[in-house]
């Protein structure tokens, strides 16, 4: 079990670093095919086909999102946010073919001299691939999921 924990932690820390550094393409490579990425709005859980989300997408939709952020003309990221994430409170359930992971995150963001924090808890379903994992499913539940937001033009 300690070997699994270390592998999961390393994987989440790497994902956080790629997001911190706006390395969108490398971040997207962490996802499995097919995959699902979900950032709920208003409530923590519901049917995303009848209730709106801040983000809800399969591989194609996530890919479009990454392409757009990569393009350099997303003005809400000009200048870019400087960010560092802390990932903690990691709980792991080994399901064999799929590892279920819950982890808290704190995103510290500074953009245009304004400092903001975005916090929440993410649920991952990871599938083993080679020596690490791919993300089959990621659901990032923000503490501020029901609040008015200025700008979240970055990866959560």
């Amino acid at each position, binding site marked *: 079990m300690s070997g699994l924990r270390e592998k999961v932690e390393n994987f989440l820390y790497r994902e956080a670093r790629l997001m911190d550094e706006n390395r969108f393409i490398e971040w997207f490579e962490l996802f499995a095919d097919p995959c699902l990425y979900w950032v709920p709005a208003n409530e923590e859980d519901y049917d995303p086909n*009848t*209730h*709106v989300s801040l983000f*809800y997408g399969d591989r194609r939709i996530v890919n*479009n999102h990454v392409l757009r952020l990569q393009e350099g003309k997303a003005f809400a990221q000009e200048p870019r946010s400087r960010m560092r994430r802390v990932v903690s409170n990691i709980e792991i359930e080994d399901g064999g073919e799929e590892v279920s992971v819950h982890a808290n995150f704190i995103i510290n963001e500074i953009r245009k001299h304004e400092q903001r924090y975005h916090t929440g808890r993410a649920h991952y379903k990871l599938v083993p691939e080679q020596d690490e994992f791919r993300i089959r499913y990621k659901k990032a539940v923000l503490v501020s999921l*029901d609040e*008015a937001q*200025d*700008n979240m*033009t970055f990866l959560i």
Partner: protein
Amino acid sequence: MTQGDAHPIDYDALVKPDAVHGACYIRPDIFAEELKRIYGRGWVFIGHQSEIPDAGDYVRKWIGLQPVLFARDKAGKYNVLFNRCMHRGASICQNERGNVGGFRCEYHGWFYRLDGALQAMPYPDAYGSDFDKTQYNLRKPARVDEYRGFVFASLSAKGIALTEHISGPARQQLDYACDLSPDGELIVRSGATKLAYNGNWKLQMENSIDGYHPNFTHQSYIGTFERTTGMKFDMFNGDSSVQSRDLGMGATNIDSRRYSLENPHARARLQSLQKSSWGKKYYDDLVKAHGKERAEEVLIINGTHMNVFPNLVVLAQQVRTIQPVSTERTEVYLRPSLLKGVPDEVNMHRLRAYESFYTTAGGGIHDDVEMFNRVHEGLRCNEDPWLIFRRGLHREQVDNDGTIFGQGTDETAQRAMWRHWKSVMQQELEG
């Protein structure tokens, strides 16, 4: 101009036919006057009746800065109630939405029914035998009315009817949105995504019907769309047949009727829609409900893109409410509008389309928000404080229905909004 003001605000000097002074966005005294005149007297959008389908459902709303509750009572009627206990002034409802049997003020336990009637208060003997409970019902706006489920309130007993506030051409635009449903009804209860920005509420009104900005502000979205689909997005080019339109009473529209009806891609949607079984069912049901001609017209035009002054935007798959907070801050609540009586897939696609552009973590609207923040910063420069709304002024035309229109990138709609704003701000207040 209000009688007795030491320094009346000269709106003629601030709003010209082709330019608006920056003071209209940042002066606190003008903001206070807006709350009194625009939000304190005229028709203000509250919500869509489908937000509260069942008895006991409520959603918190605002009229200007005043908190109200939009609640469905046990008789099935919707009510707009001030969120303020008649006893000692505490707000009686703390959650943004929910379902309750009535509203209990938790300060001293006064209990109100969903229609606002005071039902009971603890230890009533102490109020004496001549205490008339009916005098202490929750207060309501003087007038409440609706058009196709869009509920509005006015705090003034006098004034024009809602059907005058929302002109015939404006109602026709709302009809395009509603008639996408075979039942003719939108359903607005799929949650909300909420954004906030530093700046005046009118920045969002100007932007919602701005056909000039998409090719620039939304380059990243349009560029990605073009590269991933291989299609050209020419709707907001300077020579497109989209029109910027003044619908009257400050209501405005990016009118894509002509553009869509002439556009082979828009017409091709009728065929591509019918390739799936759910799409075919939707098409057939719509034809059955509205007739083939109207059904195809609404499918090709595909909703509307409009403002109803001062705080409602209906566009694409959404209903947007603009909420002034101060000269420095505005919140915008965006709610997906789904269609009643259609296959689930139709509404699922509406949700996904909404999310791709209109959430703060999505693809488009945060670039608008960024521009509002930038305008607000720029407004601190006093050297030449004018914002120019001149585009297309020389080529405006009057249409058969009396509405004024220009080319899609023209600022006809913004000028219309500002003309109406000025006329409301200059109205004499009675009494």
